[in-house]
């Protein structure tokens, strides 16, 4: 029995040890570090599910262990575990593009860093305080700088890394400046203190608004909410696919949990800026859904398509947040995980078989591997929000949250976005099932990938037809 706090420390320590191991034990089999990382994450997940509730008293002022925190911690662990499997699947591609020509490099950090990121994300889930928000957030962001630019022999990865670096650092600057102003206006760094001060008439509303706007902009960047979503398509497309998966699920979820807590603090009972924050979130949600869905229609690269799709999903989650439905945000995130990770896993598996990530490369997939084609159909159907898959439950709950708050205009835009989704998500499915001329070779799928694909498909369908599964985790 370990407390969640010790599990985070454990993960970070294992991450550092694995980096050291990789650097010094040069004779080691190259598969040891990946499997050690997977094992450590699996162990941490088991420990997390059987954790003890008590945490040291000194930490309680800035460390929450409520249901939201627990949900996102489990979420981060599951994501990391699957991302590590995806990374292992694409191991030789990452190794090829990260070494200098002719030199065989070991890429242990590529598996050790996600553990550190995971510890950071779990920590963020518990943040009750702006300091406790900022430090793990930066731990995650800086580790991602390394991961995005990891395959440095690929010009695309390097370019994505530079873009992510500049825009990430920009958002950090904006975020800290926002924190400073929120502190200046409220005299407090804890969310509780901020919420209390926001409802006091003596608080300077203008200063608080400036701070809140900057803070939300900084966090909006992390989750990819419009108008701070511009980096997403380039970075997602250029980064190594396992890292893209990690960014689009893990980093986004961690961003949403702190965004949820910040918004709760700003829109508490009697808050002076509740209306403005609410309206800003609503407009951001509408804009995000449109700027995600409409450009997605014209994409010809599946990875880039999924980047736009992740923007549009972020829009739906911001919409739920704007309606005050924090449980729905978490639920949507939970429905988004299996489908998105499945999609990226497929891209990696295809890539190892020499199939690129352009849309036209998918043609004839159903002949070459019925399993992969079916998995692709399930993943994209769920992202499109087709009923009886996980994605539908998420969209339905968001629609209901928005309708119960009478935000009909945004609902109409969300309908437009979802309708566009039917086109751009079904297009890869149609391509995969279209026959092609001539002979085609069968694709090989490794046993590990097979099992993971099967588990994720079951996850998508199970959450779609029996959402209680996910809801019980949220309780």
């Amino acid at each position, binding site marked *: 029995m370990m407390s969640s706090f010790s599990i985070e420390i454990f993960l970070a320590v294992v991450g550092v040890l694995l980096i050291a191991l990789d650097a010094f034990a040069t004779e080691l089999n190259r598969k040891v570090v990946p499997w050690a990382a997977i094992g450590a994450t699996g162990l941490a997940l088991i420990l997390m599910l059987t954790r003890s509730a008590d945490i040291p008293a000194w930490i309680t002022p800035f460390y929450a262990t409520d249901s939201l925190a627990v949900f996102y911690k489990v979420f981060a662990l599951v994501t990391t575990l699957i991302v590590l499997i995806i990374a292992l699947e694409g191991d030789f591609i990452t190794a090829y593009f990260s070494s200098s020509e002719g030199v065989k490099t070991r890429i242990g950090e590529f598996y050790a860093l996600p553990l550190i990121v995971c510890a950071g994300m779990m920590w963020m889930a518990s943040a009750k305080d702006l300091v406790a928000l900022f430090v793990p957030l930066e731990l995650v962001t800086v580790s991602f700088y390394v991961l995005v630019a990891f395959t440095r022999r690929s010009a695309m990865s390097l370019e994505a890394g530079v873009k992510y670096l500049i825009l990430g650092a920009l958002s950090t600057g904006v975020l800290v400046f926002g924190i400073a102003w929120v502190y200046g206006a409220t005299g407090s760094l804890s969310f509780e203190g901020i919420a209390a001060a926001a409802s006091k008439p003596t608080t300077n509303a203008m200063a608080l608004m400036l701070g809140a706007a900057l803070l939300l902009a900084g966090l909006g960047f992390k989750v990819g909410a419009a108008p701070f979503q511009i980096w997403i398509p380039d970075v997602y497309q250029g980064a190594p696919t396992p890292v893209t998966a990690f960014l689009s699920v893990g980093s986004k979820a961690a961003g949403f949990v702190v965004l949820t807590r910040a918004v709760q603090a700003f829109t508490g009972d009697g808050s002076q800026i509740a209306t403005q924050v609410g309206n800003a979130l609503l407009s951001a949600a509408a804009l995000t859904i449109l700027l995600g869905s409409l450009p997605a229609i014209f994409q010809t690269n599946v990875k880039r398509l999924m980047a736009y799709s992740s923007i549009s999903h972020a829009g739906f989650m911001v919409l739920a947040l704007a309606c005050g439905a924090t449980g729905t945000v978490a639920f949507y995130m939970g429905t988004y995980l299996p489908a998105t990770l499945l999609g990226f896993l497929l891209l990696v598996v295809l890539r190892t078989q020499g199939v690129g990530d352009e849309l036209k490369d998918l043609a004839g997939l159903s002949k070459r591997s019925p399993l992969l084609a079916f998995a692709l159909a399930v993943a994209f159907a769920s992202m499109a929000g087709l009923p009886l898959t996980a994605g539908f439950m998420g969209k339905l709950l968001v629609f209901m949250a928005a309708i119960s708050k009478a935000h009909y205009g945004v609902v109409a835009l969300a309908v437009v976005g979802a309708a566009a989704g039917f086109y751009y998500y079904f297009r890869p499915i149609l391509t995969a099932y279209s026959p092609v001329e001539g002979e085609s070779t069968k694709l090989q799928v490794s046993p590990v990938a097979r099992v993971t694909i099967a588990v994720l498909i079951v996850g998508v369908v199970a959450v779609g037809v029996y959402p*209680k599964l996910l809801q019980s985790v949220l309780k």
Partner: protein
Amino acid sequence: MGLLELLIFIPLLAAALIGAGLPGKVIARSAAALNLLLVLAAISQFNAGNTLAHSYPILDNPAIAFAVKADGLSLTMALLTSLVLIAANCQIGEGKPAIYYVSSLLIAGGAMGAFLCTDIFFLYGFHELALIPTLLMIAIHGHGDATNRRAIAWKITVYLGVGSLILLAGLAALVVALKPASGLTFDLAALMQSAKDHPLPAATQAWIFTALLVGFGTLVSLFPFHSWAAPAYATAPTPVAMLHSGVLKKFGLYGLIRIALPLLPLGAKHECVQQALLWMLIGNIIVIGLVTIHQQKLDTLLGNSSVMHMGYIFLGIAAGTQVAINGAIILMFAHGISIALLFALCGRMRNQLGTLEFSKLGGLAANAPFLTVMFAFGTFASIGLPGLANFAGEVMVFLGAFDSNINDGFKLIHWATILGLWGVVMSAVYMLRAYRNLFFGKAASGHFMSDPVITQRVSLVLLAGVLLVVGCCPGLITGLLKDLTIAAP
């Protein structure tokens, strides 16, 4: 697991098995036959007073359950589904890829689920199972050149996708508006109770009804949201055309009768909504009727005629009286059977003749007497000849519609009824002309057609027989419907 759950899961399971590589023909046909037997068993159970209701909660807040329950309406639709499924499976030729069987079973299983579930979540959700199979079947295995059929496949997908999203928004609004004290629920019975206890204001009902009408209406090809239907049916592979036009399209009408009318009685009666609906259905009957008359090919003619005939059913819904709605339900059933029969014949003719243009064909009766008789059944049913099922439905719709509020003076609905009667004349014109052109007259050279093998014959005779039996004894269906109360008091 009860009878109704089996009805839903057998086709889906069969689809999964065939998808996993088991032989398609055997499994699909046995699943379809088993389904028909189980529907008949369910009907006899229902007549014995057993509603076969089961409920499995899947979410607490909002309360969602996989809940099934039999009543006259849902059993009628289930019977239609299983009949058309058998016939559609028998039209799949030897050597066709497994996706033919998988998609027809998915479409039918989804329709079955939509008709039997009493929870809005599953009622809506099962219907959407058809979306991807339809897209794939039309785009990949449809008729005509590749670019064209892909465009048509996208058209139907986008139309139905948008329609169902509007519908979803409307249903979500309905669920939110009718929230009982115990919390949000998707259960129809609970919503009904809530609608009785706390009726919504008429204006709210009107706009939610409008959303549902547009959403469901798009799925049923209500004018002016109809333009996906005719080309899609003309292009789709035969089993998909049969199932889509015969069964799936009835889902929208079913939804209106099952959800919109009882939960939003004031919305349905709202002056503007009613006027709009009447004008739209007149559009279906007259505008599409005229379009249909001008068709020069059998497939587009059938596609358009199926759009046109939806107008009558909408007329029954617009009238809202018990007689008119029962008539609409019978007509839904009868139209489903007759259009499936006609599309089956149309598919066979396309395979053998290579063309469906009236100008190039003629005299087919000489070598295919059996098909000629079957086509006659379809034709006469579709123009509403007495003795065939459609007649009973049409008469009840017209009587019910004409009867509604006639004491308040002669209104648009009565005009619509009269125009509807003219629509019947139009149907007679184009159907009989098609029949004469194809089967009689001078035989065109180079086009030869023969009668089909025995299994296909059995499936066609099944459909024709049902048309005849229900036409002679409409009491078989009205008996099921006798306890159904839809119309607002």
